[in-house]
């Protein structure tokens, strides 16, 4: 079994360093002959597995590839698209049959979990040499590091803030909310059938945990202990918004795309949403503004969860690993990073770049301001985050659909989370 697998991996490694096609070789031989130089060229292919599928993102990826290959003629980039929900399992499968890609672009809460499967290369030696490394915000850095090891570099970050419809708020005579009290007040005054005061996503996917986290964390809570009063308070806020009819009960089925649709169709006065929807909201023609996620009390700091993807280098042969690292370093040059973040609607995970973005695009400022305190989701549970998140959203859905009070629902999920955390 053992020899078999090492044999296989040897074959796989051999295969990954693809030789140039014969006709290229002939051309190359002619060219080198003319120049009087004899060079041995072996192309290295770097396969990048990702789930980006928006046009602007794909264009930017193609541009990076073009520029990188121009600068590094011995390396070829090959992008492989995989649907969002399958990226982790597909990467694991590829690694299990010794056909691991050189780079996987992994959603940040999944990085540490994938690292636990031992397929990611510890690139702490290399990344600490990158100029941007020490300029990273603490949150994104925590998402990729564990016990002094680094398993990736953030491509960029996103998070959540509160979008508001300027017309609706001024018609109701209210200011954009900073606190929970003000939020309830704004929602009450703007809710007028068929318009709801607020829209958010409490759907049965990661999206609901992610959307609730700003409220939980800003209130000082943690997913590790959902029995705390801060957790109950944060969920009660959502439950009240729905039970008072200030938010639709359909939030239980709204994905974030649906939430944005409600807002752009003028059926919600405010919404919890990230920077990736900025273009769509602008296009809708709605006069809108963005403020940080409201906090429990005046003066409290909003703590938002971090979204965004990370370049992760997979274990392979040293030549491919080195080529992959070269590619990552290429994308992490500040100028290049700025372009990528603009094209991907990211807030940069690098402080200086994010500040530039905020200066040239003032709408982004609430997101940029929140970056200092933003938390990596895996800070609550590390590699176990996905399981903990699943238990958490069960409580959110139970309480909002009225199958028990916020406290009861959270207690049940907290017991589950306790069991998850005590497992090794």
């Amino acid at each position, binding site marked *: 079994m053992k020899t078999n697998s090492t044999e296989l991996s040897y074959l796989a490694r051999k295969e990954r360093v693809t030789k140039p096609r014969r006709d290229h070789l002939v051309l190359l031989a002619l060219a080198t002959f003319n120049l009087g130089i004899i060079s041995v060229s072996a192309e290295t292919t770097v396969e990048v597995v990702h789930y980006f599928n928006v046009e602007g993102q794909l264009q930017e990826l193609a541009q990076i590839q073009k520029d990188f290959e121009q600068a590094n003629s011995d390396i070829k980039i090959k992008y492989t698209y995989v649907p969002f929900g399958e990226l982790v399992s597909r990467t694991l499968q590829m690694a299990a049959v010794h056909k691991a890609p050189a780079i996987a672009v992994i959603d940040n809460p999944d990085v540490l979990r994938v690292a636990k499967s031992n397929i990611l290369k510890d690139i702490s030696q290399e990344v600490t040499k990158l100029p941007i490394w020490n300029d990273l915000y603490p949150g994104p850095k925590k998402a990729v590091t564990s016990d002094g090891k680094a398993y990736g570099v953030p491509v960029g970050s996103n998070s959540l803030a509160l979008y508001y419809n300027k017309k609706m708020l001024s018609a109701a005579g209210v200011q954009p909310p900073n606190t929970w009290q003000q939020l309830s007040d704004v929602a009450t005054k703007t809710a007028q059938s068929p318009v709801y005061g607020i829209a958010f996503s409490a759907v*049965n996917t990661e999206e609901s945990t992610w959307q609730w986290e700003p409220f939980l964390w800003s209130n000082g809570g943690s997913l590790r202990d959902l029995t705390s009063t801060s957790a109950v308070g944060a969920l009660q806020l959502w439950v009240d918004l729905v039970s008072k009819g200030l938010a639709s009960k359909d939030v239980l089925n709204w994905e974030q795309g649906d939430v944005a649709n409600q807002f752009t169709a003028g059926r919600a006065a405010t919404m919890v949403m990230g920077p990736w929807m900025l273009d769509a909201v602008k296009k809708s023609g709605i006069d809108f503004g963005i403020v940080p996620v409201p906090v429990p009390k005046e003066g409290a700091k909003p703590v938002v969860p971090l979204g965004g993807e990370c370049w992760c280098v997979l274990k392979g042969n040293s030549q491919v690993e080195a080529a992959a690292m070269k590619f990552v370093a290429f994308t992490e040059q500040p100028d290049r990073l700025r372009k990528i973040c603009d094209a991907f609607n990211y807030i940069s995970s690098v402080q200086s770049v994010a500040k530039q973005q905020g200066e040239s695009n003032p709408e982004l400022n609430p997101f940029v301001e929140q970056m200092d305190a933003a938390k990596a989701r895996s800070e609550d549970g590390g590699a176990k985050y996905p399981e903990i998140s699943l238990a958490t959203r069960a409580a959110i859905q139970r309480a909002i659909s009225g199958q028990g009070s916020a406290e009861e629902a959270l207690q049940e999920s907290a017991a589950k989370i306790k069991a998850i955390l005590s497992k090794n």
Partner: protein
Amino acid sequence: MSRSELSNAVSFSQEHQPRKERFHFSPYAFVLPCALFSAALLLYPVVNSLALSFRQATVDTFVSGEMPFNGLTQYQAAVADPVFWRAVINTVLFTAFSIVFQFVIGFLLALLFQFKFPLKSVCLSLLLIPWLLPLLTSANIFKGLFNEAGLINQLLHLIGGRPIPWLADQHFALPATIVANIWIGFPFNFVLLYAGMQNIPEEVYEAAKLDGADYWRRVTQITVPLLKPVALSVLMLGTVYTVKVFDLVWIMTGGGPANSTHLLSTYAYQVGFSILNFGEAAAIATLMVLLLLVLNLFRLLMQQR
């Protein structure tokens, strides 16, 4: 022919045509592609999944390939979770209601289409639309219809009812998905039953008519019994299709609210691909196959009666 002549003939034939059958290659050659196909694409995954269900296959152990054998642990973990039992009950309810309504509607429509009426062929093609639409489309349409501000609530409002948060309420969400599934599945029942009815010879009906049997008598005493073999196949196929429904529910509710609409398929997917506990997901899938076997045994019993 005398006795000796007969024995001569027998010995003759034995001499010249050996009794031993020659091996005929061609029938096996015809079956071979199908057998290979089934083995590679059906048998192998099923066996593999069964094997996986007895192993601790999680993120940590999957890539290294060690996946220690741990017997029934996965099954114990699966059945210890109340969500699993909810999913079992939901799967049974979902299947039973879907099949009954799909079948009855399909049967009644098939009866209707035995008559001649204007625009019959147009109506026939229109009726097939639900079956032809991509599931992604139908599921999203129903998600919209059952929305709080959707068409169904607007109609309710017109007749003076209060809006119901269909997909956001744990009592209404499953029935809503069942309604959607009935709509998607009835054309399948209709087409097969319609074809089956067309195959019943006209003479049988004429004879019954001459004997003075009225319409309902002809339906209950000729159509129903003669349609039984077709009906049983339709029911069996329908059951298999319905137990493994995944996309419709996944799109409409994602198993929510609060896990109240999880079917075994969506639950197994969630355990497998959200938590990446492949072993437990395989165990749930295996139990789902067992459920299918039980349902089919039940059908066999019905068939023998």
